[in-house]
């Protein structure tokens, strides 16, 4: 196994660990809605939420990095350049995340000065980590880019997939620089912040996961490089073709010019179209292989990715993307419903698929199958869909009562939050969150144990 692949396993393990922290913080965040005195005066909603959303970003990033560190040495036919540096930085990265989290929990807030932003909490959503840690992230990502680009340079071997990846890493890194400024003007702050957030999750991350899925398909289904590359280019064209100006759907209400209502609404309304193509493609792949594969869990998580992406991003997104609807849905639990579904479908399922593929290789198995993964798959997906459905109901109630009827005042907010449909939605969301958490526990157990009884499974696989 290449050192890069050993590093990949560390990143993927760290990703799974952070997924757990994310889940715990998520349960906490959900619980405050049910019991608002929970930890009052000790740890408040905003800290739990910060832990929840920041670990979400980091676990997915670590998942991407792990996947890429895994596939790349085989792609290049050699160990990655700068691997020693990357190995050291893994521990630095993980250590930094731990320190940042502890400071969030223990220190929580600073005074309104630069010291607080540098060492405690920057207080900008998803990028709350203090500046010292943001510098760390830049270094880690720069070395990551160096590992990729440096190796391509040395081997002079650039496949279509690696070319797309390398080009994508540039905006990925540059956009992250918005994690540093503290612009006083909220309109300008949010304008640039959305460059980072949208052009990460609805552009550069889409390309990253596309590259990762290309490699996964080659290994899982034996698809040829030519085919995956062709479709990768199509995906890049369509997803970025709609997503780059789809950024405008975040510019409706932040003080930006009103032409964004038309431009943003139009392009983001087109975003579901490529996702339909992806569904067709995924079903085609599944069907032409008669649902047979050497790694069932990886394959099912891949299918979950295609469907989750379409439903969570496409259907749920389309409901709220037109400005006439968004005016009321904006900043409500409806957004939360869409966010959970889209992140799960577009990224989480894909990373889990790769993790199962890596597990298969690690255990040296020609065939990976089991029973527990099915329970985990069911619990996580049903849990997620249950949360999404509950949040949708709460979101409808909130948009209806607080925005459309109440005019979004403080009293209208309270009316929305205390509306019976809203309250029931919050309770239901928490219950499904528990199911999701159970699915996570099953996932971890399964990842630790699947395929270890190799001879039995191999025989079962051969018999099928």
């Amino acid at each position, binding site marked *: 196994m290449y050192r890069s692949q050993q590093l990949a396993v560390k990143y993927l393990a760290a990703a799974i660990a952070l997924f757990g922290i994310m889940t715990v913080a998520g349960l906490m965040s959900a619980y405050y809605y049910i019991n608002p005195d929970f930890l*009052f005066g000790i740890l408040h909603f905003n800290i739990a939420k*910060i832990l929840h959303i920041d670990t979400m970003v980091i676990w997915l990033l670590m998942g991407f990095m792990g996947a890429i560190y895994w596939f790349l040495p085989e792609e290049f036919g050699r160990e990655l350049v700068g691997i020693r540096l990357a190995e050291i930085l893994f521990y630095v990265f993980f250590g930094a995340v731990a320190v940042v989290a502890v400071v969030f929990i223990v220190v929580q807030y600073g005074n*309104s000065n630069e010291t607080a*932003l540098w060492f405690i909490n920057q*207080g*900008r*959503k998803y990028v709350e980590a203090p500046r010292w840690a943001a510098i760390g992230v830049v270094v880690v990502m720069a070395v990551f880019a160096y590992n990729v680009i440096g190796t391509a340079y040395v081997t002079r071997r650039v496949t279509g997939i690696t070319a797309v990846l390398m080009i994508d890493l540039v905006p990925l890194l540059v956009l992250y620089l918005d994690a540093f400024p503290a612009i006083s003007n909220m309109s300008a702050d949010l304008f640039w912040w959305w460059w980072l957030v949208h052009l990460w999750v609805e552009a550069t991350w889409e390309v990253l996961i596309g590259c990762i899925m290309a490699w996964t398909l080659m290994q899982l289904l034996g698809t040829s490089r030519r085919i995956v590359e062709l479709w990768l280019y199509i995906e890049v064209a369509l997803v970025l073709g709609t997503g780059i100006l789809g950024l405008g759907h975040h510019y409706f209400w932040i003080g930006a*010019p009103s032409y964004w209502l038309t431009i943003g609404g139009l392009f983001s309304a087109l975003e579901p179209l490529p996702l339909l193509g992806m569904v067709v493609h995924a079903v085609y792949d599944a069907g032409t292989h008669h649902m047979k594969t050497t790694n069932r869990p990886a394959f099912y998580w891949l299918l979950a990715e295609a469907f989750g992406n379409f439903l969570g991003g496409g259907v749920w997104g389309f409901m709220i993307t037109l400005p006439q609807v968004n005016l009321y849905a904006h900043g409500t639990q409806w957004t939360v419903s869409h966010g959970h579904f889209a992140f799960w479908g577009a990224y989480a399922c894909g990373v889990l698929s790769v993790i199962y593929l890596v597990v298969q290789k690690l255990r040296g198995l020609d065939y990976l199958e089991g029973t527990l993964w099915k329970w985990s798959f069911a619990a996580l997906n049903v849990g997620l869909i249950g949360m999404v459905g509950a949040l949708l109901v709460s979101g409808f109630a909130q948009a209806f009562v607080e925005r459309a009827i109440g*005019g979004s005042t403080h009293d209208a907010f309270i009316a929305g939050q205390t509306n019976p449909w809203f309250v029931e939605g919050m309770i239901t969301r928490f219950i499904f969150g528990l199911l999701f958490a159970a699915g996570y526990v099953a996932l971890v157990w399964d990842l630790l144990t699947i395929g270890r009884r190799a001879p039995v499974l191999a025989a079962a696989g051969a018999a099928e």
Partner: protein
Amino acid sequence: MHVDDPAFWRAGAISTVAIMSAVLIMLTIDSLAAISPGGSNVPRYTVINQHIDYKFDENRGNDVPVIGGPEPLFGKAVDAAAAEALIDKGKMVIQSRACIDCHTFFGNGAYYAPDLTKAWLDPAWETWQAITGATTREDAMVKFLMNPEKYRIWTRAMPNLGLTQQEAEATVAYLKWMASVDTNGFPPNFGHMQSKQ
């Protein structure tokens, strides 16, 4: 080139991304002018010396901020430098206390606490004026921000974030300025309850 040739689609990907990125950059340059203080959509920070309202505009079909006559904050008009200092400080408070992880600003943030886009105009401050014994809206806001847990009006309370008087005043100034930004009508119908249909 044929559609089954990856090079065809590669060319398509490159050209699509290039064109879309160029358009985005052009629109960004235009937007930055509009959203800078003093631009078409975002007033200068000295707007905190004036009366701010939010009314429906028939031509535009949505609510728009209306900037009125003098109404100095805390009874004291401030010059451009002082206004900017207040806004800078207010934003630092908002970031250092991670307000955006409970509240929303222009609808962005977290949904546990109310949206603050038009908080300056919220009728609820009358209630807080009464319970804090403040004589003006801004004084009520300052008192509330410094001890929110003392003035809770429903089950979900805002925690005490250790704001000083200076920080609370800066935050209030920030909220007043924010209420003057033209957000294309978000939030809709603020302060005027929609009639039931």
